[in-house]
């Protein structure tokens, strides 16, 4: 016991010394230039998804702006994790400066978090930019970062749309033409059936994240709504025939054995190993899919309902500023402008698969022109930009809990416990009592 204690104590002292030295060094490095304004940039980009791009952008900005130092901080567990950390930090008085906020948290953030309003910053500290927002962003895109009560709480940054990926080899095996992917949901149902019957391979899967993004696209493209305003109050809007009809399409596929109901990871892994024919998920997965699959991944537009316009909620994030100090606010705004510049957006797009929110980047030779021309899957996503709408976010203190209720109802419907119409009605009642 004595020997082990000594050994452990020695290890501790050694480790402590090394760590202290290490800490000491990094402290020295940053305290060398006291005149720099230091700002913190919080993001959700893991090493495997955009992390390197974030690093590159931050390095580039720091180099071009010697009076500002941006420090980036990764937050695990996506926007949920980031918001958790953000809340904890703000509760102890330490807020970051620039933050990627998920669109689904739009109303929650707008109501509960003390952010710095970008229009105010422009008016007070950077009046030369007073037409920046209107000049560079389409109104429907700018609206993505506007809360229900009209406040522009940030700038849209990463935009993703759902697309339908498919495996051309599986198509061929089932006698289907890979160059004629399904265009409507009816066709999807048929294709899924054919694939299952002719090859025994699962036909279709729609992503099942801890949110209702894809399901919203499904419902709203059939004319349904997630939220509805009744008498000035926001209520659940999905207990309508259009909504249940749309959901039932998905439920029926699962019931017939042509569609899969499982966790995302399981489904994506299965797709990559060639065991699912079609997968409906975000364009953000493009890069990962293309690299991990043994077959050529193809994509087509999110299927539509015959005769109805598609409505696709934008996934991704907006940039919000939380600095309270005017110097930091100015620096934060300069960083945000940099991130939204065509060159930076192009880099971002290539590194993550997100679509650029700003006008003209795809046509810009400095931007994404070449890349867009080469990558067909990217083109598919781009073509859907005009159909982008806001990702519905439940307001109020119980908003996040309401979202969970909708996620729960997905499990209920897809497991066949209840029909879509019944389940949605129950969920709407439950959610309305929460809002």
């Amino acid at each position: 016991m004595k020997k082990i204690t000594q050994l452990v104590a020695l290890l501790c002292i050694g480790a402590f010394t090394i760590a202290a030295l290490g800490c000491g060094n990094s402290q020295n490095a940053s305290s060398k230039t006291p005149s720099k304004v230091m700002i913190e940039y919080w993001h959700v980009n893991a090493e495997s998804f955009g992390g390197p791009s974030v690093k590159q952008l931050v390095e580039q900005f720091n180099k071009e702006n010697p009076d500002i130092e941006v420090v980036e901080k990764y937050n695990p567990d996506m926007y949920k994790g980031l918001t958790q950390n953000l809340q904890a930090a703000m509760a102890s008085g330490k807020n970051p400066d620039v933050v990627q906020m998920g669109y689904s948290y739009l109303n929650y953030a707008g109501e509960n978090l003390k952010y710095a309003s970008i229009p105010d910053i422009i008016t007070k500290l950077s009046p030369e930019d007073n037409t920046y927002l209107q000049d560079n962003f389409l109104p429907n895109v700018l609206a993505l970062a506007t809360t229900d009560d009209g406040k522009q709480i940030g700038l849209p940054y990463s935009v993703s749309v759902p697309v339908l990926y498919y495996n051309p080899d599986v198509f061929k095996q089932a006698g289907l033409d890979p160059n004629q992917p399904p265009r409507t949901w009816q066709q999807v149902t048929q294709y899924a059936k054919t694939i299952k019957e002719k090859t025994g391979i699962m036909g279709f899967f729609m992503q099942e994240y801890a949110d209702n993004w894809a399901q919203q696209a499904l419902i709203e493209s059939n004319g349904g709504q997630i939220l509805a305003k009744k008498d000035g109050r926001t209520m659940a809007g999905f207990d309508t025939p259009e909504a249940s009809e749309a959901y039932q399409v998905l439920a029926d596929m699962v019931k017939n054995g042509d569609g899969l109901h499982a966790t995302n990871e399981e489904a994506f892994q299965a797709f990559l190993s060639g065991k699912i024919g079609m997968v409906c998920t975000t364009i953000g997965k493009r890069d990962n899919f293309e690299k991990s699959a043994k077959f050529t991944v193809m994509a087509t537009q999110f299927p539509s309902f015959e005769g109805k316009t598609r409505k696709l909620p934008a996934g991704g994030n907006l940039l919000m500023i939380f600095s309270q100090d005017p110097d930091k606010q100015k620096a934060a705004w300069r960083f945000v402008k940099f991130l939204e510049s065509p060159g930076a957006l192009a880099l971002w797009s290539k590194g993550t698969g997100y679509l650029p929110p700003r006008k003209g980047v795809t046509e810009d030779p400095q931007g994404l022109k070449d890349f867009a021309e080469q990558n067909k899957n990217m083109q598919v996503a781009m073509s859907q930009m005009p159909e982008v709408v806001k990702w519905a976010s439940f307001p109020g203190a119980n908003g996040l809990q309401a979202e969970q209720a909708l996620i729960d109802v997905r499990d209920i419907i897809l497991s066949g416990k209840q029909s879509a119409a019944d389940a949605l009605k129950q969920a709407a009642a439950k959610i309305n009592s929460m809002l």
Partner: protein
Amino acid sequence: MKINSYRDWYWHILLLFAVVIQLWPLLFMLSTSFKTMDQIFLSTLNPLPAKPVIDNYLYVLKNLPLIQYIVNTLLIASSITLAKIITSILAGFAFVYYDFSHKEKLFNTLLLTFFIPITVVMMPNYLFISKLGLLNTPWGVILPQLADGMGIFLMRQSMRNIPKPLLEAGRLENASPWVILTRIILPLIKPSVIAMGIVFFINSWNDYFWPLLILHDKPTYTLPLALQMFISAEGGSEWGIAMAVAMLTALPPLLLYLTCQRFIMNTFMQSGVKG
């Protein structure tokens, strides 16, 4: 002593089956760390890579401050383990050696703390650590974990097993409680202390939720936090690299166990078979 060889075979098969179940997933982990991205999700029973590559490990070594992470994790795990062992032994001793009013009540109170799930105390502790200015430091992670209700429980348990006459002998010679603790009791409970220490160490080494809240800057990360960097919900994970990091994270506790296990075995043999 009759050896029933038939029976022995039966047990061996059962245990081998258990071993396979325990190790098979690890084989996957090991082999995935040597695969390229497009090899990982092949639907086959054979976990071995067709063309093993060390790209994932090279990536890790090049892009992550691995030594720093290992040092961070080691510092935190060792400090917590040492602190818990010491405080538990001291407290356990007090419960066994002394008599005072409300002894059982106090013991149960301390014991109840290990029933408290981390989610319950996370937030208030975070705010407290933040007020102390210890955010982003290993000490912020270590401070709330200096003692452990389970440790006190276990130490009292094992001390209770010491024959009373031994303790009496010490008291008769007017030995101070400290001497009784270190000269008589400690040597006898060595195996329990080691087993407990290993448990504490491995738990701290793999701890995720609490360090996640406290450690913000990448240089301060522990290995489990580093692992999370490669698992992303949005864009998809890099399983190969994640598994490489996972392998590197798993090695030290494993080596620790294998080394210490021999020590435990030797201890058993030295203290002789009882009876």
